């Protein structure tokens, strides 16, 4: 595939790149930390001796949020990230690319079925720690993790915001950031999605968060939003 690549450009965000193909298409990508391994069948690109992995915005809500105008990405090189709802490791693998070996990604996931795949991803990434545990009970993994600069929450649960807040109290450093992917349909199907986003953001404000941005992820994910908030 490397023939069809024109250039790889830096974006304004650390360790996130844009692959520009000859035919003019532009895709987000990250430097592959586990060279030669892909995670979900994504395309890889070699440019100037570096391997990049395409970052599909339809598969990863963080990529979707970036394309939809996320102002600041709290996930940087060297960040420690606590990731709730790591699933089979699609987004965690890209976060693992971004934070590189200096950073750590603690991926908590409750479903044994997908943890099986998460483990396979983690095997080639020594900065990704897969943890099979229930995010409702932070005590059950508190002796495996450390405090993080970023709490990333993507768990489709009706009380997901409360779970995020509860975990932030445990593990989020002062001034750290919360990235909360809200699935309106799993909070209340009967309500209008924008209304759900509003009430959830309000909840965060009342609990001492400074909500910086609410991004509607349409068309990448219907009825989803990404909230960026700072923990005071």
């Amino acid at each position: 595939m490397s023939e069809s690549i024109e250039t790889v450009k830096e974006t304004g965000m650390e360790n996130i790149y844009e692959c520009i193909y000859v035919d003019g298409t532009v895709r987000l990508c990250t430097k592959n930390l586990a060279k030669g391994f892909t995670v979900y069948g994504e395309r890889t690109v070699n440019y100037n001796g570096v391997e990049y992995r395409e970052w599909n915005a339809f598969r990863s809500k963080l990529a979707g949020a970036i394309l939809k105008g996320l102002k600041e990405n709290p996930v940087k090189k060297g960040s420690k990230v606590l990731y709730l709802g790591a699933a089979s490791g699609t987004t965690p693998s890209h976060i693992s690319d971004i934070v590189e070996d200096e950073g750590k990604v603690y991926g908590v996931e409750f479903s044994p079925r997908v943890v099986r795949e998460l483990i396979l991803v983690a095997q080639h990434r020594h900065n990704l720690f897969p943890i099979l545990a229930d995010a409702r009970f932070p005590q059950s993994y508190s002796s495996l993790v450390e405090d993080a600069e970023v709490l990333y929450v993507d768990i489709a649960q009706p009380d997901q915001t409360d779970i995020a807040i509860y975990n932030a109290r445990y593990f989020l450093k002062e001034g750290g950031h919360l990235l909360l992917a809200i699935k309106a349909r799993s909070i209340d199907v009967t309500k209008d999605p924008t209304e759900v986003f509003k009430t959830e953001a309000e909840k965060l404000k009342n609990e001492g968060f400074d909500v910086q941005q609410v991004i509607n992820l349409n068309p990448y994910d219907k009825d989803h939003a990404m909230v960026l908030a700072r923990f005071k």
Partner: protein
Amino acid sequence: MRIYLAEHTIGSFAFDESGNLLDYVLNPKELGKVVDILINTEKGEPMPSTVELIQKLKPTEVVIESETESAKMQSLGIKVVSKPHHVGAKVLRSSLAEIAVKAKFAEDPKDIYSFLYQVTLEYTRRKLRKAAQKRDLLAIQAIRAIDDIDKTINLFSERLREWYSIHFPEADKLVEDHDQYAKIVSNIGYRDAVTVEALTEIGLNEQKAKKLADAAKKSIGADISDADINSIRDLANTILSLFRLRASLYDYLDSIMREVSPNVTELVGPTLGARLLSLAGSLEELSKMPASTIQVLGAEKALFRALKSGSRPPKHGIIFQYPAIHVSPRWQRGKIARALAAKLAIASRIDAYSGRFVGTQLVEQVNKRIEEIKTKYAQPPPKKQQPPREEGKKDRREHKKGKKGKRR
């Protein structure tokens, strides 16, 4: 003295109330042992390093993070208070690598993280193995396989009927059973060989066999060659072997369901029982569901439509397959479904957590209630006056009635 105690993979650490490290005891730096310790803490067993630390410091009061351990710790004869994310835990977790190096658990941060990585992987693998050992997952896969086979049998049988009808079109209408039809094609084949004797041999009754043999003689179908009939036969044989596979899977499902979920199986049989497990995800998940959810499992589409539009909610989901529900008159079904769902909730909880067998009592109680419903509500309720409909607002149920959306 009051200490703030924080446990981590690397060991137990005691802090004072302003977050200064008082003392610590390290865990052994061995993968297997540490994972054992971690798994035990989840069951409420304090780490051995914690016990050692407490005996060393002899505090009057200990503040810990996890409530689950407080009972066992109190048995050491000290006052225990549980307070999530207390100062000590915060200090430990925010400068973990630093503390680990200072405590000489590791030479440098790289060392500690690579150990932590190994521990996490092993810990998760071990928990995964435990989860995979749950036998209910096998039952779920078995029922899904049976459903897949049923679909395939239907698909193949439709094709077989179309194909064989070129030669013997009359058989399609006369033999409704797929199994029997495939047997005729496979064992007899040519229309000319269709005789009463041949048919009774594969299990048709005399009357039907006669009808069919008659039709064969007067058939309007085309003549075909050996090569043609052989290909059609191959397909029929595949269908027959799928029927055999289905039967053996059913036996397997029956035995495994009686093992993992005896009460649910007694109540609704292995097939429906396994379908409920399949929809819930696992026995444990099913046991955590309220009866009202069990009642409409499998009717999610109808349920959410009702929640959204305010139309009438479904009365039953997959439990519609329970004979007493679908053979009863319409107005009794909801009541029976409710009663059955309530007993299913009880049965699944006993199956998941105690394993006692109370199936026979539950069946008795359900049957009694069904009897009661049948006598009490023998007549259909009087038709309610329809409220005048708003202009332009169409009742969403109306045009969907034909599609059996909530049934499987």
